[in-house]
């Protein structure tokens, strides 16, 4: 079969469907009178349409049997299973939509708050700092305090609010100054106390040594005196051989 004129193909179909106005239809008809290929194309389309109608009738021939089959299946469906009541049947379409929108928005807000980063609590941070700084001055504790201060400082610095960040930095600085002053004062006091204890120990040792030396000298003096007296007494006695 020869092909129809390319620019006429759609117009021929539109003519067959009745989609053209009178002037367009007349123009296409005039072309068909002159063009055998387009005329043959229209005839072929009309034959195709008739075949489609015939096919539709053929397929529709069993409709009653199909309907009867469906109705037969309906018998097996229990009326109890024939749908369920709405939870709130009195609520109209718009109200249901509004309620659904509110629920969805509420859920969105809740999820947003739950998942968003929490802001730094300055008061809580300050209380923790004061408690930690005043707790102890021992090195280990001091290290942990400094680590915590550093952690809080990082948390404060990471906050988006510049003002809040400045407040946190200033507070940390103040607390560090207080910590340093307290540490220095307490360190001097501790050194003085230790020094006084050492001095007392030295003095006590000295006193003990003096007492021991004095006792030793007294014993030596006593024993030396007794020895001289014995020697003097023996010197005064006459030799035994001379008397015999």
């Amino acid at each position: 079969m020869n092909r129809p004129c390319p620019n006429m193909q759609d117009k021929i179909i539109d003519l067959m469907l009745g989609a053209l106005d009178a002037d367009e239809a007349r123009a296409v008809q005039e072309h068909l009178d002159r063009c055998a290929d387009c005329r043959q194309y229209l005839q072929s389309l009309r034959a195709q349409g008739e075949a489609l109608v015939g096919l539709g009738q053929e397929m529709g021939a069993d409709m009653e049997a199909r309907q009867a089959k469906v109705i037969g299946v309906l018998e097996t469906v229990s009326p109890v299973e024939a749908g369920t009541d709405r939870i709130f049947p009195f609520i109209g379409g718009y109200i249901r939509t509004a309620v659904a929108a509110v629920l969805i928005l509420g859920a969105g807000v809740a999820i947003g708050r739950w998942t968003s980063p929490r802001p730094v609590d300055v008061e809580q941070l300050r209380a923790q700092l004061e408690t930690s700084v005043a707790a102890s001055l021992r090195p280990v504790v001091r290290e942990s305090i400094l680590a915590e201060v550093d952690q809080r400082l990082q948390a404060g610095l990471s906050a988006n609010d510049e003002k809040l960040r400045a407040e946190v930095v200033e507070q940390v600085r103040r607390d560090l100054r207080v910590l340093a002053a307290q540490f220095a004062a307490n360190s001097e006091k501790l050194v003085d106390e230790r020094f006084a204890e050492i001095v007392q120990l030295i003095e006590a040792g000295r006193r003990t040594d003096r007492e021991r030396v004095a006792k030793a000298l007294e014993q030596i003096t006593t024993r030396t005196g007794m020895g001289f007296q014995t020697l003097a007494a023996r010197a005064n006695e006459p030799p035994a051989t001379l008397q015999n």
Partner: protein
Amino acid sequence: MELCLDERSDQDLVRAACRGDRTAYAGLVRRHYNHVFLVCLGVLGKVHDAEDVAQDAMIKGFERIRQLRDGAQFGGWVVAIARNLSINLLRQRKSTEKALGTGGPPEPARAEASHEDLRQAVARLPWDLRLPLVLYYFDGQNVKAVAEKLDISTSGVYLKLRTAIKELHDILTMQGETP
């Protein structure tokens, strides 16, 4: 169950069906089944598939009848169920064929024209072209009615019909030229 036509309106039949009256629903089936079937055929392109899905759609319509607010809208409502079921089945088939690597172009039909050739050619059309074609030729509806049923403009229906007719003619011509 008697097969006589029920003269009550769709609204009355729906109201009765909501109370579990299967006879009333049978009246709705007799009134709307043809259109439901043709829509399924238009989407799926195969009679057996269309029969199965049309039956499912009518049964689902009965099960969900109490969800229908306006009984006068039953026709459009049940057709929408049928159309969605058909499109879902078509998608499942395509995804299965894609997964299995099957489902290539159908084999060319015999050279001589017959209803079977035409049926196969119609089945090869894309469903969005086949559906208006089936409603126009098989159901004998005019373009305006098809546009209302498909919820598209009349110019949209003309465009789809024109394309469908042209493609169908090309398929049949190619089949005729196949040795």
